[in-house]
């Protein structure tokens, strides 16, 4: 096992202090959440809390077809349209494109154009009050001609992206393998379900521009979209983040669409316009996690070593590309799991279907493929009669191993450490042995028809499951180099220290850890450091608040900027920064340090060959889950979860634990209850009464173990934390269900219907595969 208290290879970065293992929850550590008091007293202003005098209410006319030609928008002549503004595609002054990776998604479908999915925006309405808007909606009727639609990603030949990774000679290795195992795994949509729905307020400006304030993760994504769609310059387009009630990726790209809509209405009305989605519209129209079909063929030796992997990943992108190519890329790179295997072929593709576009969601392609990889490995262990813990010990990446992109893991590798910590704290082997003997007893005591494991005495069966994952920290490949993010620290003439970044707070703790990191670097009290608002008029483009990059990448830039500021002040004053910066500011005037991202030393990726260092470092996570399965109803109660996560140097234990706990519960929901059902390409359960997420009663007890394998390329040794826990929860829960019942569930969620079908071998009504659309009735 690597010694995590030392770095394994210096990369010319600042020395990181020796790491420590933090057992359990470290309460009381770290400064209190900076914006916490405002959130606790009701003072915090989310978009819908903001007062905008004279504001109109905006709404969206959406498609009720999955694929159709948009013929006309019929406005009922009996309705009084004099106080209503109607916007169609012909009102768009710039490109009718929502700026993203590919220019394929229109702001509004033009007349004569093709509608590509249910709930696609066709036209916009605004009125001075809600009642008029509601009446106007009922008086506006899109006329369409239906076209044949495609809902099956396997049948679609319109591909958004493909990737292929290869190493060694898989076919020769399969021929030499002692055991070859095949498996097919399917996962469906998952909704981010931030508790605050999407919301935007657009205010037209005298210079012909617009200021948009809203709930969003990425101010400069919205800024770019406004410039392109409205034909504005950098100053005319201004984006301000309101307090944001959760994102999880769901407010990464879709806010650009809503901001454009609100701005178009505001421009035409000459009034501020509020576009506040209700839950139904938010669920029906905005992006979800990509459904995926993952096929594995794995060759192993009798002693459990992986020698060949052939993996096919097919993701359903929905109707437009959004961020699908990069979601798929991350999925392809993580598809084999955190395991050494010399002979690999990974083929990944993302196809277009006539369903609402899928997009960013915590984990970004990795949870789908690692559910498949981990379930495959757990099945292999069972076939070999080997412990799931032992098979992972034999295959987990160690320092010096090479990944399928040819990346040599030189630094910050902690797969073994998290595995052992989780297995030990979760008592994995002891519980597994206990459940094994319980299952033997039960099988010996007779069965009840339709539920083979059910006996008169034992209605519930308990199980324990284990999973392990890796998660690339920050952007994939050359993403960070292309972004070239900038942060600034300002010492004002009044002697105030101010951070300027576009990184947003959405609950994860940006507004707390940024002042904390800068205060530490400057050796001043945290209260001496303030944070400028996330407003494109003031802050530089520090990149989007995504990909678990904020603490690692942007935090690292801030430390570098702070050190430069400190150096300049101390060189001038000859005294310690803390004692002299106010005097320096008075005598020298303001000083602003801009720090631009520089590539991490020794880290490089070639987009053309798709080879190299896919990530500067990986985070590592292991999870042990305990479940009780009701053998009569198929319901699963996830009772206890132990999560061990290596996130590099822990900046703030309470906030870091919060990330692990929240991500773990989202993964438990993904595993057990969260599913979108579709009919004819429309989401059926598009209300909170029917799309359900775990409550406090459904949630397991979660024990978090933070493991610190510092990343030597970052000045503070931090890696990402947000997404990592999302990768391991689902396969651990499914393995626990198999431990309890003997049945492997290959489709997520492992719903009661799927569990009963697997237990009995027959289902009264066979559940549709995840992500599939049933035909219209």
């Amino acid at each position, binding site marked *: 096992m690597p010694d995590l208290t030392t770095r394994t290879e210096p990369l010319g970065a600042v020395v990181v202090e020796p790491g420590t293992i933090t057992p359990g929850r470290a*309460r*009381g550590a770290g400064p*209190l*959440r900076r*914006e*916490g*008091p*405002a*959130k*606790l*007293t*009701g*003072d*915090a*202003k*989310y978009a*819908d*809390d903001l*007062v905008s005098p004279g504001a109109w209410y905006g709404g969206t006319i959406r498609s009720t077809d999955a694929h159709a030609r948009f013929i006309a928008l019929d406005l009922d002549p009996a309705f009084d349209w004099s106080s209503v503004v109607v916007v169609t595609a012909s009102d768009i002054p710039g490109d009718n494109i929502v700026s993203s990776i590919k220019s394929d998604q229109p702001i509004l479908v033009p007349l004569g154009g093709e509608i590509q999915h249910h709930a696609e925006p066709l036209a916009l309405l605004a009125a001075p009050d809600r009642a008029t808007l509601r009446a106007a909606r009922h008086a506006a009727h899109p006329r369409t001609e239906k076209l044949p639609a495609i809902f099956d990603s396997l049948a679609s030949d319109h591909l958004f992206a493909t990737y292929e990774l290869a190493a060694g000679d898989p076919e020769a290795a399969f021929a030499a393998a002692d055991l070859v195992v095949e498996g097919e795994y399917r996962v469906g949509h998952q909704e*981010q*379900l*931030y*508790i*605050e*729905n999407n919301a935007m307020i657009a205010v037209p400006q005298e210079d012909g521009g617009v200021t948009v304030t809203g709930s969003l993760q990425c101010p400069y994504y919205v800024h770019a979209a406004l410039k392109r769609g409205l034909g504005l310059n950098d100053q005319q387009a201004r984006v301000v983040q309101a*307090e*944001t*009630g*959760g*994102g*999880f990726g769901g407010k990464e790209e879709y806010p650009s669409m809503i901001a454009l809509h609100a701005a178009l209405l505001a421009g035409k009305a000459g009034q501020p316009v509020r576009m506040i989605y*209700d*839950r139904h519209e938010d669920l029906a129209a905005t992006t979800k996690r990509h459904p995926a079909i993952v096929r594995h063929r794995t060759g192993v030796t009798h002693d459990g070593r992986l020698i060949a992997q052939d993996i096919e990943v097919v993701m359903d992108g929905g109707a437009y590309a959004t961020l699908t190519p990069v979601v798929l890329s991350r999925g392809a790179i993580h598809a084999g799991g955190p395991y050494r295997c010399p002979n690999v072929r990974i083929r990944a593709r993302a196809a277009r279907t006539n369903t609402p576009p899928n997009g960013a969601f915590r984990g970004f392609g990795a949870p789908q493929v690692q559910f498949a990889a981990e379930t495959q490995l757990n099945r292999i262990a069972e076939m070999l009669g080997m412990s799931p813990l032992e098979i992972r010990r034999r295959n987990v990446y160690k320092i010096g191993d090479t990944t399928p992109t040819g990346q040599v893991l030189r630094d910050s590798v902690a797969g073994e450490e998290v595995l052992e910590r989780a297995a030990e704290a979760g008592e994995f082997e002891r519980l597994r042995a206990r459940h094994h003997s319980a299952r033997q007893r039960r099988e010996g005591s007779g069965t009840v028809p339709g539920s083979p494991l059910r006996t008169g005495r034992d209605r519930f069966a308990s199980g324990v499951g284990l999973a392990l994952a890796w998660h690339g920290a920050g952007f994939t490949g050359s993403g960070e180099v292309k972004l070239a993010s900038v942060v600034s620290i300002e010492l004002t003439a009044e002697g105030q220290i101010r951070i300027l970044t576009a990184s947003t707070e*959405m*609950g*994860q*703790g940006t507004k707390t850890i940024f002042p904390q990191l800068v205060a530490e670097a400057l050796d001043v009290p945290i209260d001496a450091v303030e944070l400028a608002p996330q407003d494109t008029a003031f802050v530089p483009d520090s990149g989007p608040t995504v990909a678990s990059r904020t603490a690692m990448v942007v935090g690292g830039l801030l430390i570098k900027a702070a050190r430069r500021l400190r150096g300049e002040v101390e060189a001038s004053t000859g005294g310690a920064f803390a004692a002299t910066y106010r005097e320096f500011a008075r005598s020298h005037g303001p000083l602003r340090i801009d720090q631009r991202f520089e590539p991490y030393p020794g880290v490089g990726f070639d987009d053309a060959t798709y080879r190299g260092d896919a990530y500067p470092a990986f985070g590592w996570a292991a999870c042990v889950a305990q479940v009780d399965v009701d053998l009569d109803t198929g319901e699963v109660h996830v009772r206890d979860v132990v999560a061990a996560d290596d996130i590099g140097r822990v900046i703030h234990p*309470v*906030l870091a*634990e*919060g990330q692990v*706990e*929240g*991500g*773990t*519960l*989202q993964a438990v929901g993904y595993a057990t209850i969260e599913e979108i059902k579709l009919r004819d390409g429309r989401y059926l359960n598009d*209300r*909170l*009464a029917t799309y359900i*997420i775990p*409550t*406090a*009663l459904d*949630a397991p*007890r*979660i024990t*978090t173990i933070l493991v610190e394998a510092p990343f030597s390329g970052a000045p503070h040794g931090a890696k990402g934390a947000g997404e990592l826990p999302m990768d391991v929860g689902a396969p651990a829960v499914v393995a626990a269900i198999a431990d309890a019942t003997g049945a492997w569930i290959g489709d997520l969620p492992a719903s009661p219907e799927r569990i009963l079908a697997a237990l009995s071998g027959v289902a009264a009504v066979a559940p549709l595969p995840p992500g599939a659309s049933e035909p219209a009735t």
Partner: protein
Amino acid sequence: MRYLVTLQVNRTSYPVELEVGRTLLSVLRGELGLTGSKEGCDDSECGACMVLIDGRPVNSCSYLALQAAGRQITTVEGLASGTKLHPLQQAFLEHGAVQCGFCTPGMLISATALLAANPDPTEDEIRAGLSGNLCRCTGYVGIVAAVRSAAAELANAD
């Protein structure tokens, strides 16, 4: 048809003229400017709009404002005393029970009602008491810990 009524919110009287169909949530947030109570679903599912009516937790999105006339309404804005946070608010802050903050007002209201009815709840009782409030950020771990800690604090203060 509009009715003139007086709403008692956080020990303050607000005379308002209302149409019959208005929800309490829309009046609190609109006419009264008390935007601490949130709309997360408008469906009585998420609990973000929860307020106390005569001490009982109610989803204000599904409660008519006129029904609330003559009753004592408490919103999240009424919990702190001046600048001093209520022990529940302080415990939420210290235990990482606040992340995005959007469920927090409703969660605090439910927790207040729970502790008023049951000053020394078990973990299961806390989870049951908060099960009408959805949180997507915390996994509920910090929230349960905060309520337990506040219960101890309040018991010591008595």
